[in-house]
């Protein structure tokens, strides 16, 4: 036993980068082919266009880059885009969980129909959604006319941006949480009840921690989609400078002025910020998932 324990660290130490690349004997064929294909594909479709963005923005030089991205109007759009996207993703986590819960746990007439409706924001052209939302929430629209007397204005305000982002983000949370919830055995909840936990304790101490990785994934997806969303937002946002302009709109505006470098500068900031946020969420998710292996 002792000799095994002593011998063990040696191969452990040698394991490193070289073994990572060394071809290992595997029953699954085609590792190098599949990996090579994936890398080339990723490069062509994702990395090269993104690199072009960085390259173009670099023509501005540091000062030009700084000037292009720190104009008050641009900064306001950063704040709105990231703020509204984070809030929208958070709202979607709460309501997406409730939706998924209802769809998994209960049987009711029309369940399949509702299940199908969830995917509509995926399929609908975003401009259609934007126009529909703007019409509904305008002060003379069905919903807007009810809210206006209460002093709540949705259309053409940051709140309108939020509504549009909630709309397009919902399916991401529902579709990531639903299968995980389906996987949660009723026995686990029964065990909690047998141990004296009430409904709220079972929900908060057993079900939510169990769903946390899925909720984080849903949050990340909904957030990523919301940051990049254009079509559905511009109709309801009203696009007032400093108030309801989103980043993608700023980019379009710059493009229309033939300021390509300025547009890519904003895009670079947007990319880096999104990447950092998504990375953070992924790390958080990996951390919560550690203990979530299937039994």
């Amino acid at each position, binding site marked *: 036993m002792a000799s095994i324990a002593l011998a063990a660290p040696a191969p452990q130490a040698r394991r490193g980068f070289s073994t990572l690349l060394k071809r290992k004997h595997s029953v699954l064929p085609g590792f190098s082919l599949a990996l090579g294909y994936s890398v080339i594909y990723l490069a062509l479709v994702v990395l090269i266009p993104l690199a072009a963005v960085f390259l173009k923005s670099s023509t501005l030089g540091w000062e030009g880059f700084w000037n292009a991205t720190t104009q008050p109007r641009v900064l306001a759009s950063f704040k709105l885009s990231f703020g509204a996207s984070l809030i929208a993703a958070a709202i979607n986590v709460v309501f997406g969980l409730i939706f998924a819960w209802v769809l998994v746990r209960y049987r009711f007439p029309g369940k399949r129909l509702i299940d199908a409706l969830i995917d509509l924001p995926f399929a609908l052209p975003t401009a259609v959604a934007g126009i529909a939302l703007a019409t509904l929430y305008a002060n003379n629209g069905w919903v807007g006319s009810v809210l206006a007397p209460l002093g709540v204005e949705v259309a053409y305000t940051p709140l309108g941006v939020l509504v549009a982002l909630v709309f397009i983000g919902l399916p991401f949370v529902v579709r990531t949480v639903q299968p995980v919830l389906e996987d949660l055995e009723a026995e686990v909840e029964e065990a909690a009840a047998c141990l004296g936990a009430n409904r709220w304790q079972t929900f908060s101490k057993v079900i939510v921690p*169990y769903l946390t990785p899925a909720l984080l994934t849903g949050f990340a997806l909904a957030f990523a989609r919301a940051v990049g969303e254009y079509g559905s937002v511009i109709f309801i946002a009203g696009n007032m400078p400093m108030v309801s302009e989103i980043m993608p709109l700023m980019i379009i505006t710059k493009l229309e002025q033939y300021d390509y470098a300025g547009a890519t500068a904003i895009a670079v900031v947007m990319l880096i910020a999104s990447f950092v946020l998504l990375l953070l969420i992924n790390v958080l998710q990996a951390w919560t998932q550690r203990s*979530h292996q299937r039994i």
Partner: protein
Amino acid sequence: MSISVSNINKRFGGFTALDNVSLDFPSGQLVALLGPSGCGKTTLLRIIAGLERADSGEVFLEGANASALHVREREVGFVFQHYALFRHMTVFDNVAFGLRVKPRDQRPSDAEIRRKVRDLLQLVQLDWLADRYPAQLSGGQRQRIALARALAVEPRVLLLDEPFGALDAKVRKELRRWLRQLHDELHITSIFVTHDQEEALEVADRVVLMDHGRVEQVGTPDEVYDHPASPFVYGFLGSVNLFHGRVDGQALRVGEHALELGAHDLAHDASAVGYVRPHEVQLLRDDGLVDGGLPATVLRITSSGALATVELSRPESPGERVEVTVFRDTLRQIGVGEGDRVRLKPLRVRVFPAEAAASSNSSAAAPLAA
């Protein structure tokens, strides 16, 4: 703490899971609910726990009617077949769960919880796993943790639903001995559900045999094995050879041969079936001098360890097989090999009326027809 159920009925759609079941589980005993799958044993356990509601009938815990109590208030410990551990919590947190969800005024202090969980983990001999997650444990370890978790809230009764069903044979055997020892230490009234007759006979103080939602027999393991109340119980508790014939005084006529019977209450000339366990048959070499018994031919001999299983056919019913288990030494002494002619002398025959035997055949665990 005693448990009793009276006149429990439960239907799932058109399927009757429990048909007017009444049972008493005396305090401090370990009782096995034994039966084939679909016999209603798990449903009965879940109704006692409060996880399922009976269509009619009552559950009494310590004499008090508990039928309307929620599962939270029944103070039962329940162990599930697939463990149902909280996989996002460590072993320690799993066991501590029941203590931590108590209302604030009843909740023990953190130090008290820590001490209690340590004690329980020591009781199940897994204190060294406190910081692991369920996914890092073996099946047997998971089930012991599930048991420790159930015991943490000091339940009045312990209910185990096929606790060893998901484990491999060797672990299962170890764990059921361990459960028996644990029960002898704790003396908590326990009911466990199983479809494995060996497990029930080995572990339980009393065995309740169920079939088609009804209780067939209740008794100690020896009672139910030695004096099965019905053909179903006989067939379910072990392999059995069936001999069809007619009652003739103190004998069962099988074709032109006779099997001696003990005491029985069947009418003369009634159509009956004799039940004989494979190890309760004497095997004699047919050298023309043997008197009595049924003639048969050895088809195959398979040995496992000290015992040999002899498969035979009788000339009167060539399609059917008789199985006899003997020590391999005995087989060597009488010098019987494959193809030899022998005489079968059952040492103990239990007869049931032919109709009763026919109706139970479908659900009994593979009786060997003969």
